[in-house]
C-alpha cells in the first residue's frame, strides 16, 4: 500500500527525519490559513497523487503570493494529474501540500528495502538525487552505494557512516545521515514497510539534511497490525477494478487485449497470458483467483472480467490445488445467474475434485467450450476471440 507524500512526511517527523515545514490543503477554503501559517514569501504547492513525474506534469508549482496559491489550488484540487507514470486516466488530486521551499545546496538519494538474498535490508544512497534513480543506475552505477543490513543486528551506525562517507558528506552531515538512516530503518521495521524512498534527500544551505520528497510503501500483508496506517489508504488513487479485486481478495491487473483470463495461481496466470500471446491472441487482464478462492470470490472474478467491455472471449484455466474444481464450477454457475454472459467461454479444468467440477459445469445450462490441455484451451480461445 502506497502512502501519499504528506502521510509519509508526517511519519518521517515521528521517526526523527527532518522534513520541510508544510500544511495539507484539502479545500479551497484552507488556502488562506495554510499560506499565512507557513509565513514564507514563497510556497511550493504539490499535488498529492500516487504517481511519479509530478513536477513535469504540473503537479508541483511555486506560488509567490496567496492569490497565486489560490489559482494553483483551484486548478489542481479535484482535477486528475496525468504524468508519464500515471496511466492515461491519471490520478485524482484531493489534497495538496503547501510547503516552505528548501534552500538546496545538494540533492541526494536514499532508500531502504528488503534484500531477498541476504534476508536483511538494503540501504541505497546516491549523490545523484532528485532525478530518476534507474537512469543513474544504468548510466553511472558507481554513483550508487549500497549497504546491506542484517535482519538481526540493530547496531549499524558504522554502516550508516560508511554510506555517508561514500557520498562524500562532511563529518557533521555524516552524523545527520546516521540519524536519518536510523530513523528510516526504525520506521521500515516498525511499520512493516516494503519501500522507503527519499528522493531527493537534500542538504540545505543551512547545512541540514532534509527529506524533500517521500515515497513510502507498506506491506499489505502486515496491515492488520498497523490499523492507523491501514486507515491512510486512499482508495481513490487505485484502479477501480483492481481495487474491487483487491477487496475481494483477488489479484487483478488490467491489460490491453480482448481475452479475459481467469486462472488460479500467479505463475499459471502469467503462463496463461504467455501462451495466449504465443498463439497470437491478446490477454485483457491478469486475474489470479488465488489458492483458496470461495464461490463468492469466483462470482466477483467473473463480474470483473465482464466489466471490461473489450473482452470478447473468456479463458478459464484452473489447475485445482487448494482451490477445488467443484468450488470453481459452482462459482461460475452462480455468476452466470447474476451476470449475463454473451461471449464464448473456454474452460480447462484439472486437479483437485476435477470430476465433480466437470459434472457441475456439465449439468448447468451454461454454454462453454471445454479443453483438455492448456495449449488446446489457448488455441480455442484465440480462435473464438477473433
Amino acid at each position, binding site marked *: 500500500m502506497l502512502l501519499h507524500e504528506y502521510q509519509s512526511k508526517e511519519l518521517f517527523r515521528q521517526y526523527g527525519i527532518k522534513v520541510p515545514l508544510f500544511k495539507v490543503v484539502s479545500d479551497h477554503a484552507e488556502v488562506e490559513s495554510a499560506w499565512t501559517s507557513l509565513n514564507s514569501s514563497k510556497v511550493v504547492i504539490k499535488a498529492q497523487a500516487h504517481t511519479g513525474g509530478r513536477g513535469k506534469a504540473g503537479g508541483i508549482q511555486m506560488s509567490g503570493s496567496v492569490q497565486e496559491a489560490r489559482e494553483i489550488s483551484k486548478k489542481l484540487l479535484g482535477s486528475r494529474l496525468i504524468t508519464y507514470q500515471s496511466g492515461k486516466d491519471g490520478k485524482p488530486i484531493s489534497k495538496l501540500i503547501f510547503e516552505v521551499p528548501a534552500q538546496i545546496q545538494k540533492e541526494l538519494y536514499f532508500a531502504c528495502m528488503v534484500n531477498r538474498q541476504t534476508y536483511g535490508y538494503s540501504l541505497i544512497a546516491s549523490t545523484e538525487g532528485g532525478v530518476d534513480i534507474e537512469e543513474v543506475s544504468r548510466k553511472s552505477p558507481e554513483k550508487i552505494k549500497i549497504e546491506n543490513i542484517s535482519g538481526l543486528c540493530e547496531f549499524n551506525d558504522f554502516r550508516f557512516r560508511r554510506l555517508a562517507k561514500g557520498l562524500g558528506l562532511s563529518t557533521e552531515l555524516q552524523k545527520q545521515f546516521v540519524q536519518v538512516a536510523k530513523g528510516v530503518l526504525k520506521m521500515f521495521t516498525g511499520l512493516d514497510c516494503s519501500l522507503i524512498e527519499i528522493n531527493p534527500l537534500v542538504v540545505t544551505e543551512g547545512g541540514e539534511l532534509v527529506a524533500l520528497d517521500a515515497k513510502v510503501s507498506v506491506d499489505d*500483508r502486515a496491515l492488520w497490525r498497523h490499523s492507523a496506517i491501514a486507515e491512510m489508504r486512499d482508495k481513490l488513487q487505485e484502479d477501480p477494478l483492481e481495487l474491487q479485486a483487491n477487496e475481494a481478495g483477488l489479484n487483478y491487473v488490467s491489460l490491453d487485449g480482448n481475452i479475459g483470463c481467469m486462472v488460479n495461481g500467479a505463475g499459471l496466470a502469467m*503462463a496463461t497470458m504467455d501462451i495466449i500471446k504465443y498463439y497470437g491472441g491478446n490477454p485483457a487482464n491478469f486475474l489470479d483467483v488465488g*489458492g483458496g478462492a470461495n464461490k463468492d470470490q469466483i462470482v466477483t472474478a467473473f463480474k470483473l472480467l465482464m466489466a471490461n467491455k473489450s473482452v470478447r472471449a473468456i479463458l478459464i484455466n484452473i489447475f485445482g490445488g487448494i482451490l477445488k474444481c467443484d468450488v470453481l464450477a459452482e462459482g461460475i454457475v452462480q455468476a452466470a445467474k447474476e451476470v449475463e454472459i454473451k461471449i464464448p467461454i473456454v474452460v480447462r479444468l484439472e*486437479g483437485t475434485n476435477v470430476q465433480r467440477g466437470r459434472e457441475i459445469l456439465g449439468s448447468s445450462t451454461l454454454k462453454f467450450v471445454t479443453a483438455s490441455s492448456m495449449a488446446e484451451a489457448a488455441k480455442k480461445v484465440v480462435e473464438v476471440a477473433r
Partner: protein
Amino acid sequence: MSILVDKNTRVVVQGITGSAGSFHAKQMLEYGTKVVAGVTPGKGGQRFEDRVPVYDSVEEAVKNEGADASVLFVPPALCADSICEACDAGIKLAVCITEGIPILDELKFRNYIGNKMRLIGPNCPGIITAGETKLGIMPGYIHKKGRVGVISRSGTLTYEAVWQLSNVGLGQTTCIGIGGDPIIGLKYIDLLELFRSDIETEAVVLIGEIGGQDEEMAAAFIKESKYPKPVITFIGGQTAPKGKRMGHAGAIIEGGKGTAQGKIQALEDAGVTVCKSPADIGETAAKILR
C-alpha cells in the same frame, strides 16, 4: 529414489484442525503420506479422523510420534512462530503452505532457522515424491512415479508441468514448489544439488518466473558446476506488464536482472533448454530423454 521425502517420512500437520489443514491432511493420508500427528495449540488430546493424534505443540508430536517433517497450514499472523517452533522441536524439513505472511516475519524466521532446519516455502504447494508421499496441497493423481525432478516457484504451473510429464509417460521423482514469496527457504540451487546425486532423477524441470535473481543464480550454478543432468525450463511472465509492483529502488538492486528475457538468456547460456510455451514442457523433456 527421491530427495528430501519418501514413504518413510513421518509428517506432522501444523494447523490440522483448520479447514485447509484438515482437508489436505485427509488428502495426504489418502495419498499414503505417513501423517503421524497434528498440532493445534489448545486442541491437544483430540484425534483427527479418529486416528491421527492431535497435540498442543510440535515438541510433543516429535517426542511421541517421531515426526521428522512438518507441513504448515497456519494463519499468516501465526506462521513465523509456528516455523520457529518446528525448528526448535527438531523437525528436519518444514513445508509452509501459508500465503500472505508479512515479509518482515519471513525475514525473522528465515534468519532464525539458518541451517538448523530445511524449509520449503512459504506460499508454496509443497513437496511430493510420486507414488510415495506428499507434503502439500498438490492434487496427487496427476503425479506418476518416474524419471524427472521438478522445481518451481509457482503452484499451479507446477501441476501443469507435472501433468505434462505424466502424460508423456516420463513421470517424476520428487517435485518441489519452492514458493512465490521474496523470502523463501530452499532455493533452486539447493535442490539442484540434491537432485544431482539422486540416481533415479535423469533430468530436472525448473519452472521460473519474473522477479528476483534466483533463476540467474541457478543458471550460474548449472554452468559453473557443469551440472551433469539435463535441465528443462519455462519462465513465466514473458508478456507480463512491467513494473506494476516494483518500486524504483527495487529495479536498481536487481540491476536490470529479474526480467524473463534476462533469465532466459542466462539459462540458455548455461546450456539449459528453455521452452517457449508452457505447454511444451512435457514434450521437450520427452525428446531430451528419448
